C-alpha cells in the first residue's frame, strides 16, 4: 500500500503573474474536476498524480469499515428516536471521506475531529460507545484523547483547526515525523479561526492536513453561502497546496490523504484536502431538511453512494463472495446489539460530578460549592429518612 505519487507535495510553483484571478466557477454546474480512482459505477480509473495499489484484504477492509460505520450510525439514529440519545449527527453518505482519510493516518498521527467523525473514530479504534456519551447527555465527550490520538469532538465550529495546528507545531518542535489531521466542514470554512489556522500552519510550516468534508450543506445553507469558489482553492492564497477529491470514493480519499500526510510528515508543511461529498441525512436528528432542500438532490447523490461503489468494484473483480458479505452482516448485527445494550446500560453520572474536573489543581470556590451542595442534598435524605414532613418542600 504505497502512494506512488506525491507530486502535490512539491515546492510551491513560482508565481508567474501579478494578478491572481478568481479561479473556478460560481455555480455547481461547472465544478472543477476532482481526484477520482473509482467511478460511481465501480470502475477503477487511473489518475496522473495520485495512485494506489491495495491488496484484496485491504479493499475488503475498507468495505467492512464503511458498512460497520453506516450500521453504527443507523443504530444511533434509532436510539435517538427511542429517546436513548438526546441528539445524533449522522455521517450517512460521508463514509468514504471518513474511512479513507482515517485509514490514511498512522497510529502516531493525531486527529482533531468535529462532531460528525464517527467513521474516523472507528479507524482510530475509538470504542463507538464512547462517542455516544455526549449525545446521550452523560458527558461532553470524555474519552482520553491520547489513548488513540483522537481528540474530543468539538462543537464550536472551526476551533479545533487551531488546536490541530498548535499540536502540529509541537510535533515539529519535537522533531517527530508524525502528522496531524484536522477535520472541518464546508460551513466551517467561513470561520475566522480556520483562516488563522491556515496562516499559522503556513508560517510555521506545521505538519497538519486540513481535511474539509464539503458535504454541500451547513445545516440549511448550501456551500454557495460560504464561498463562491471551490473550497480547496482557499489554500493557495495561504501558501500551501489544496486538492479536491471525490469524497465518495474511498480509494481516492485514501490516496490523496496519504499523500497529504506524507507531505506534512516530510517537512513540506500543511495541505488542504477538500473531500467533495454529501450529507445524505438531516444535519442532526432535530433537523428537517425537507424545509430547505429538494429530494432530487439527494437522489442524485444516491447514485454516487460510497459503499455501493466499492461493492460494485469488489464484485466485478471477484474479490468478495457471499460468505464475506454474510459475515459482515453478522458483524454489523453484533455491533448494533453491542451499541444498543451499551447505551441502555450507560450510567448517568453522579450529581456531584458537576464539580469534578473543573480544575486540575483545585479551586477554593469549587470546593466550597461542592460541600454546600452536598449538604443541601443531604438535607433531603435526612428529611426522607426521618419521614418528616412540613419542613420539606
Amino acid at each position, binding site marked *: 500500500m504505497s502512494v506512488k505519487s506525491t507530486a502535490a507535495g512539491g515546492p510551491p510553483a513560482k508565481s508567474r503573474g501579478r494578478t491572481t484571478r478568481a479561479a473556478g466557477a460560481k455555480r455547481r454546474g461547472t465544478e472543477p474536476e476532482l481526484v477520482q480512482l473509482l467511478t460511481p459505477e465501480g470502475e477503477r480509473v487511473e489518475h496522473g498524480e495520485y495512485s494506489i495499489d491495495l491488496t484484496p484484504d485491504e479493499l475488503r477492509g475498507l468495505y467492512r469499515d464503511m458498512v460497520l460505520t453506516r450500521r453504527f450510525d443507523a443504530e444511533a439514529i434509532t436510539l435517538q428516536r427511542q429517546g436513548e440519545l438526546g441528539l445524533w449527527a449522522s455521517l450517512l453518505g460521508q463514509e468514504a471521506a471518513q474511512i479513507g482519510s482515517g485509514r490514511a493516518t498512522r497510529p502516531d498521527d493525531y486527529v482533531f475531529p468535529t462532531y460528525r467523525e464517527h467513521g474516523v473514530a472507528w479507524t482510530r479504534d475509538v470504542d463507538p460507545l464512547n462517542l455516544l*456519551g455526549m449525545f446521550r447527555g452523560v458527558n461532553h465527550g470524555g474519552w482520553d484523547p491520547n489513548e488513540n490520538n483522537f481528540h474530543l469532538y468539538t462543537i464550536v465550529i472551526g476551533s479545533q483547526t487551531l488546536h490541530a495546528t498548535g499540536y502540529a507545531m509541537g510535533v515539529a518542535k519535537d522533531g517527530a515525523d508524525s502528522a496531524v489531521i484536522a477535520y472541518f466542514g464546508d460551513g466551517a470554512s467561513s470561520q475566522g479561526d480556520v483562516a488563522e489556522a491556515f496562516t499559522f500552519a503556513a508560517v510555521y510550516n506545521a505538519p497538519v492536513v486540513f481535511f474539509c468534508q464539503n458535504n454541500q450543506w451547513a445545516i440549511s445553507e448550501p456551500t454557495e453561502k*460560504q464561498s463562491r469558489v471551490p473550497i480547496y482553492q482557499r489554500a493557495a492564497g495561504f501558501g500551501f497546496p489544496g486538492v479536491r477529491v471525490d469524497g465518495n470514493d474511498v480509494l481516492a480519499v485514501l490516496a490523496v490523504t496519504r499523500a497529504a500526510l506524507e507531505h506534512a510528515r516530510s517537512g513540506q508543511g500543511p495541505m488542504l484536502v477538500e473531500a467533495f461529498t454529501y450529507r445524505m441525512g438531516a444535519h442532526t436528528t432535530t433537523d428537517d431538511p425537507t424545509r430547505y432542500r429538494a429530494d432530487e438532490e439527494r437522489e442524485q447523490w444516491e447514485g454516487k453512494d460510497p459503499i455501493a461503489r466499492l461493492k460494485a468494484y469488489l464484485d466485478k473483480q471477484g474479490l468478495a463472495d457471499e460468505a464475506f458479505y454474510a459475515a459482515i452482516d453478522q458483524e454489523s448485527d453484533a455491533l448494533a446489539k453491542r451499541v444498543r445494550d451499551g447505551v441502555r446500560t450507560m450510567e448517568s453520572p453522579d450529581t456531584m460530578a458537576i464539580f469534578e474536573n473543573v480544575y486540575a489543581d483545585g479551586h477554593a470556590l469549587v470546593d466550597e460549592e461542592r460541600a454546600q451542595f452536598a449538604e443541601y442534598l443531604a438535607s433531603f435524605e435526612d428529611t426522607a429518612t426521618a419521614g418528616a414532613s412540613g419542613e420539606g418542600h
Partner: protein
Amino acid sequence: MTQMAIAKALNESLRKALESDPKVLVMGEDVGKLGGVFRITDGLQKDFGEGRVIDTPLAESGIVGTAIGLALRGYRPVVEIQFDGFVFPAYDQIVTQLAKMHARALGKVKLPVVIRIPYAGGIGAVEHHSESPEALFAHVPGLKVITPSNASDAYWMLQQAIECDDPVIFLEPKRRYWDKGEVDTSALPGSPHQAVVAQQGTDLTLAAYGPMVKVCLEAAAAAANEGRSLEVVDLRSLSPIDFDTLQASVEKTGRLVVVHEAPVFYGSGAEIAARITERCFYHLEAPVLRVGGFHAPYPPARLEEEYLPGLDRVLDAVDRALAF
C-alpha cells in the same frame, strides 16, 4: 388579545418590524428557508425576500461586524446568534466595536443593532447550547441587555429593542419558547428597562428574569401553601437594572433572594446584592442570598435538572433568608 407561544410572539414581532420599517433586516445562520433552528424567523424570508432576511456565512464575528457596517449605512439589523455558546466568536466585535462606536464618534453615529440570543438551559442539549452569558454583556458600557420572560414581553420588548438607537443584547429564554401567554399587539407597552412585580408578596422578594421567573412564581405558589407570602420581581432588563422597583419591594419585605441560571460567581446576582444592600442597608433583615449556577461548566444534559436552580433550591434559599 391573542394567546401565543413566546416563539410565535417573537416571530410576529419580527414580522411587524420588517413590515413597518424597510431598514430593518434579519440576519444570521439558517434564518432563511429553515426559519432558524428554533423557527423564530419562520416564513419571514418567504414574505420579505432574501434581501431582508439574510442567510449568512457561518461566522459570528462576520455577522456582527457586517451588521455594524449595515447600521452605519442606515439599516437596523436584527442578528440571530444560533445558541448562547456561539456568541463568543463575535464577542470582540460586540465589545470593542458595537458597544463603543457611538461614544468613539462623540455621538455622530448610532448603531441600532439587536443581537438575539436564545440562552440558558433546560432543553437537554449538548455542550455550548445552554449557557447564560448575560453578565459578560451587562458589564460592558454601551450595551443594553434585556430578556423577556413571557409572550407579551417577548413581542413588545423585541419591538422596543429594534426601535432603540443603541445596540441591544436580546436574550431569549429558549426553554420557554413554547410557553403560551396573552399578547395584546395593540397595547402601549412601558419601558423595557422597567422591572415588573409579577407577584405581590410581603415576606421576601424573589428577583429573577427570563427563564427563572416561572420557577420563582412556582416557588411563590408553593410557599403560599406554607403560609409565606413571596413577592416576585421580573427584572426584564439587566442593563440598566431597575433598582428603584426592586428597592421598593425590598423595603417592604426586608429580604431578597436573587435567582439566575448563570454561575453565581461574578453573576448578575452579585451586582443586585451589592447595590440593593447599599440602598436598603437598614431595611434588610438578612443578607441578599443568591441561587444560581455553580462555578463549573454547564453539565451534560443528564445532570442539568440537578444543576439548574429549581423550586427546591429557591425555597431552600428562602428558608435560609427567613431564618436570619
